[in-house]
């Protein structure tokens, strides 16, 4: 234990001694030391929080966030109880005097503290007050505690030198609630801690003071890591100091967290860990300090200087504080359980309180005017500028949205066009055929040409037509009609012949012509088949030969000879004739010439 304690202290000292801006860069060695230091502090504080589920801070293989959670688990209830006690003491200042005071250790502390004041810059009166408050009654091993406290405080101071503004805030807190409220400070946490500590205090007042003292004795050898927690323990009676301590504790916790999570800087670079408000402030503080700003001046800077409205927030936070101080601490089940055991407020009651608070909230919201999104028709004048951009508006679109033209869409359209062109299927507008309602009147057209008939003849014709209507000559139209009808009949005949079923016989054609060599079948057959000249005649009709007709191969030798002789004779006769003709012709021109 002592070794580990020593190691822890060593780690703490090393931490304190490190160059402060080095915390900003990821450093594995530094993180290791900080982890060891935090473990040391955790185990030192363990006796002061009986409800804590963890006996030791688990470091190996744990994430910075997880370590922080463990610390948080331990410190949260303590802080809330301390806050509650501070409040209590604020209301009943006479009780402060009832607290026990440890004179010896206190003086020593004071001396040491003064040293520290000289050492550390801008050390606060707050701490002095805290340490005064630390003189709690019932803590016997105060010296050792004080030592521890010293050391712890040393570390704390060193730690706190980074965050002196907290003390400032604590000072401000002294002045009143209005000064505390700051976004950097979490008032709800404050309230919770106060509650917790109130309970603790009540408990302690009854029987556990000595116990605590015993616990303190046991653990005095351990360094106090969180001076604040010790302070909380010790300063339970001192509401102010408790309050301050809680504030301080808050910040120190956060700084601790920061130390642990310096390796988070690496993560931040990776983008896996996001910087939070406190870290931002811490960074800002460091940089400002580095720039040479006066620390006191820096500490005077507050959240309001950086962001937001001052008055509103403070009022709001005041209200919250009041509300939540009454509420229970949900997060700490142990506390709840213990509260149940104590009987201060049953679970059911707490639930009811929660519900009531919720109801009040909701009623308040109902009374207030609604946001512009919940109001019906809102014109641009009634809502803040550019607020419509932040809201996800839903419109009913009557018009189909314009099609997004992608390559696929164009390709599909082009394919369709090509297909249509190849098919020849166009959507041309076709004129609807007008139904013939009545017989179209015969339009008599004006004849531009000179009439071939004389006037007398025209009248003559007219007279004749009048006398004898039948003898009316065919008009031009009628002639055309007749020609058309003749043509159609011819065509119709051919078409009917193709379709046998409905065949009509040949029409009587006026002009008679004798067809030679038409086979008898063609005349009678219903369907005239295509007839060629060859089929027209019978073989005998084609050739009339006399005698036995033999082919050349069938001939005997003698017959062949005979044929040849006949042929020669005929040829000779023809030749002679030709010669005779030629002679005659030749004679004539001779005669002419001659």
């Amino acid at each position, binding site marked *: 234990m002592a070794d580990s304690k020593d190691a822890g202290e060593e780690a703490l000292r090393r931490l304190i001694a490190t160059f402060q801006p080095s915390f900003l860069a990821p450093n594995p060695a530094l993180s290791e030391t900080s982890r060891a230091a935090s473990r040391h502090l955790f185990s030192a504080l363990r006796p002061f929080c009986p409800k804590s589920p963890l006996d030791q801070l688990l470091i190996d293989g744990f994430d910075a966030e997880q370590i922080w959670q463990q610390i948080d688990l331990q410190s949260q209830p303590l802080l809330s109880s301390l806050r509650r006690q501070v409040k209590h003491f604020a209301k009943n200042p006479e009780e402060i005097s009832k607290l026990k005071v440890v004179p010896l250790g206190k003086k020593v502390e004071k001396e040491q503290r003064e040293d520290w004041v000289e050492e550390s810059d801008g050390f606060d009166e707050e701490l002095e007050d805290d340490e005064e408050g630390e003189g709690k009654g019932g803590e016997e091993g105060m010296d050792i505690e004080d030592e521890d406290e010293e050391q712890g405080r040393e570390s704390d101071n060193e730690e706190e030198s980074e965050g002196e503004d907290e003390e400032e805030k604590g000072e401000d807190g002294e002045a009143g609630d209005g000064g505390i409220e700051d976004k950097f400070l979490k008032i709800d946490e404050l309230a919770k801690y106060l509650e917790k500590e109130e309970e603790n205090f009540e408990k302690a007042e009854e029987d556990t003071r000595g116990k605590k003292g015993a616990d303190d004795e046991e653990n005095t050898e351990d360094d106090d890591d969180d001076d604040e927690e010790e302070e909380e323990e010790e300063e339970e009676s001192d509401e102010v100091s408790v309050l301050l301590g809680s504030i301080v504790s808050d910040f120190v916790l956060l700084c601790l967290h920061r130390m642990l999570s310096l390796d988070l800087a690496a993560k931040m670079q990776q983008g896996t860990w996001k910087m939070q408000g406190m870290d931002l402030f811490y960074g800002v503080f460091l940089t400002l300090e580095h720039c040479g700003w006066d620390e006191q001046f820096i500490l005077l800077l507050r959240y309001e200087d950086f962001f937001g409205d001052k008055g509103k927030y403070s009022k709001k936070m005041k209200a919250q504080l009041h509300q939540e101080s009454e509420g229970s601490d949900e997060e700490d089940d142990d506390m709840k359980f213990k509260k149940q055991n104590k009987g201060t407020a049953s679970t059911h009651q707490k639930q009811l309180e929660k519900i009531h608070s919720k109801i009040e909230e909701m009623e308040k919201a109902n009374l207030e005017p609604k946001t512009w999104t919940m109001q019906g028709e809102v014109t641009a004048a009634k809502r803040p500028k550019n607020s419509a951009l932040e809201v996800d508006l839903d419109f009913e679109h009557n018009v189909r949205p314009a099609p997004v033209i992608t390559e696929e869409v164009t390709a599909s359209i082009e394919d369709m066009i090509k297909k249509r062109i190849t098919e020849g299927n166009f959507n041309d507008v076709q004129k609807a055929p007008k139904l013939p309602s009545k017989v179209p009147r015969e*339009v*008599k057209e*004006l*004849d*531009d*040409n*000179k*009439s071939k*008939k*004389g*006037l*007398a*003849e*025209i*009248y*003559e014709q*007219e007279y004749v037509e009048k006398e004898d209507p039948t003898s009316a000559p065919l008009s031009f139209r009628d002639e055309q009609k007749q020609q058309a009808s003749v043509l159609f009949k011819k065509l119709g005949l051919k078409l009917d012949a193709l379709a046998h079923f409905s065949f009509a016989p040949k029409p009587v054609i006026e002009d008679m012509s004798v067809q030679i060599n038409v086979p008898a079948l063609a005349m009678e057959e219903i369907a005239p088949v295509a007839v060629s000249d060859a089929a027209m005649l019978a073989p005998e009709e084609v050739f009339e030969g006399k005698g036995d007709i033999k082919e050349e191969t069938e001939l005997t030798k003698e017959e062949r000879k005979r044929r040849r002789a006949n042929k020669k004779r005929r040829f000779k006769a023809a030749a002679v004739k030709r010669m005779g003709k030629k002679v005659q012709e030749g004679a004539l021109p001779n005669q002419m010439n001659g």
Partner: protein
Amino acid sequence: MVLSSMEVEAAPSKAKPLPPKPMFEPLKPYEMSDGQFRKVSVPQHRYNPLKKALLDIYTPIYEQMKIDIRMNLKARKVELKMRPDTPDISNLQKCADFVHAFMIGFDVLDAIALLHLDELYVESFEIKDVKTLRGDHLSRAIGRLSGKGGKTKFAIENATKTRIVIADTKIHILESFANIKIVRDSLCRLIMGSPVGKVYSKLRAVTARLA
């Protein structure tokens, strides 16, 4: 005294019987038109056509109408005289009209209709009767009347069964009573300047109705 009955002298009333009413036979045309004849002057531009068509003119007049016809070359006139066997007194007038029509400018075949039909007549008027036009306007009016190649004129002729002769500023129409209005209307419209299409449409409507 006695009133004596007067002895009416019964004069032997040998009233002279009045001569019987003369029964005259109707006068023959020849006798009616005693010494009547018509003389139709021949304008110079119709001299040659007359020469060519003389026989065509002579034959129907002499043969069918039974009117004497002769050409007075010195006076440049066609003279028509009745013959004793002329059937009708109006023949002379008809023939005279026929010849006159020819002299105006109508064709023989057209003018012969005058001989055959009673209801045909010739009407003449001038452009200036319709509208006073001068110079180019006048020429244009004449052009409008005849149309390109005479087609407007022919269109009117064919539609209304008439014959039209446009001689410079004079217009002669050989028509029947039925078609007076149409022809005259169309021609007047054309003179006054309406477009040909309009005239055509009117003609079409009218002829459809008539036919």
